[in-house]
């Protein structure tokens, strides 16, 4: 290590020691600053979590929607094939699969394997399950073409029923709306609380600057550099951010572990949980950085305004 590097590290260490000392000297103001920052970071993290979880929920619900057309037992295979080829021609349709009565029965048995009563109700000889075409679409919200085609005069006679996911689509819309609302709410609330945090830390540092006016004057007179005078203030507010980040992370992880398991039937938290457990260093670093950044911004603002060096 070069001498100047050692010197820099030494100065950094001394700045951190001074900043920590100031933090405790300002204890009550520090508590206020940290508390608001906790709220800010918790809201930010919650917004991220809900965004992720509801996004996953949406994907899951969307994937589980079957778009299918069921046929009368007397419908001719030719007519079904004709519909199939016309469906494939639609832009929004990615695949169409023909399900025979036997296929349908096999699947029905598989789905109800734990339910012998239901299994007994159907058999190969007396198979009530209709033939169908299962359709995979790119965008569930754009299946109007599909509906129009299924109502074509040529096909009405052979179609027994359709499952075009009307019910599910409404659910999806609700989830999407909720997600959109939570994101907007999260962003707005985060911004508001971040501003409040900045304001409070700004004031904490401002008061510290006034309270330590003599000390700062003495530091200047004995030749302290501006960086060495500013450093402790910046570190003090970074400390606010780090402590706030630690508390918010505690709250969020506790909430995830406790709450997510209860909500798991309604919202799919699996991926979010996995992300927060596997990628925890990333989450921790991002949160601490966010807290530190808010601290740095506010203390810099206070110093530009009140610390005339």
């Amino acid at each position, binding site marked *: 290590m070069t001498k100047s590097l*050692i*010197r*820099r590290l*030494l*100065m950094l260490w*001394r700045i951190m020691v001074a900043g920590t000392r100031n933090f405790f000297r300002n204890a009550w103001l520090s508590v206020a600053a940290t508390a608001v920052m906790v709220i800010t970071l918790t809201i930010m993290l919650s917004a991220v979590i809900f965004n992720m979880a509801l996004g996953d929920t949406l994907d899951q619900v969307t994937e589980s929607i079957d778009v299918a057309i069921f046929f009368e037992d007397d419908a001719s295979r030719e007519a079904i094939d004709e519909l199939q080829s016309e469906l494939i021609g639609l832009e929004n349709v990615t695949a169409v699969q023909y399900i025979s009565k036997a296929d349908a029965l096999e699947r029905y048995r598989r789905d109800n394997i734990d339910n012998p009563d239901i299994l007994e109700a159907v058999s190969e000889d007396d198979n009530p399950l209709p033939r169908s075409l299962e359709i995979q679409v790119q965008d569930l919200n754009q299946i109007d073409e599909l509906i129009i085609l299924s109502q074509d005069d040529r096909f009405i006679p052979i179609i027994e029923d359709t499952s075009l996911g009307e019910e599910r689509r409404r659910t999806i819309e609700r989830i999407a709306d909720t997600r959109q609302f939570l994101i907007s709410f999260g962003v707005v609330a985060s911004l508001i609380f971040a501003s409040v945090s900045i304001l409070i830390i700004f004031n904490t540092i401002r008061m510290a600057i006034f309270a330590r006016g*003599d*000390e700062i*004057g*003495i*530091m*200047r*007179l*004995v*030749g*302290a*550099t*501006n960086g*060495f005078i500013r450093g402790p203030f910046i570190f003090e507010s970074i400390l606010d951010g780090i402590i706030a980040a630690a508390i918010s992370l505690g709250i969020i992880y506790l909430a995830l572990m406790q709450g997510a398991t209860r909500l798991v039937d309604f919202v799919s938290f699996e991926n979010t949980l996995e992300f927060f457990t596997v990628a925890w260093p990333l989450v921790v670093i991002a949160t601490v950085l966010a807290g530190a950044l808010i601290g740095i911004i506010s203390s810099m603002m206070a110093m530009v305004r009140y610390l005339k060096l």
Partner: protein
Amino acid sequence: MRAYVRINSVILLDRLSKSYGPSTALARVNLHIHPKEFVTVVGHSGAGKSTLIRLMIREEEPTSGKIIIGGIDYDNLKKRDVPQLRRKIGVVFQDFKLLPNRNIYENVAFALEITGTRPSVIQHTVPKVLQLVGLAGKEKNFPQELSGGERQRVAIARAVVRQPKILIADEPTGNLDPKHSWDIIELLLKINRYGTTVILTTHNRDIVNALQRRVVTLRNGRVVKDEERGSYDV
């Protein structure tokens, strides 16, 4: 007027003027101070002593004129170089300017800490300097537990701990009784004997007359007298 060769001056003030609006604090002051000199600057309140010192430690900038101290030409001094300059000049004030929430040892060590001095060097140097100013054993005391004279010794210790070439003492005895005042002056003389240039401003007639050193007299911002073995005559 004494004439000095520029190159020999550790402090060179050339036609130095400072005005605050219409009022003139210093008018064309010329002053050359040799290395290792002990110079006393006297004058009434408002004669310009404080302005002179504020200009020398770059608390303020002159309206016109030149300052060269320790080879540093203030005209070329950037704002960010000011801390470096202040580390080369030790300054002692009438009101001590000690950090109240640090003990004596920490107050002196502080001057070294801000320059990135290693802890081992600090631990080695500070006790020696406290010994020099006669405060050995008071390391753990806080400024408010000391007498005025002792506090001024701490301030002097802090000013010399970095071994500056120049020590500026601005009314260091202003708040002290005669006995303590003399202790401080003797300490300054001792530091001067070790080779530090000392600039002292004072109101104290007895001290000036007893010192038998160079005296620069200021009146209305001008140098009216500059004598090798001067006396107090403002």
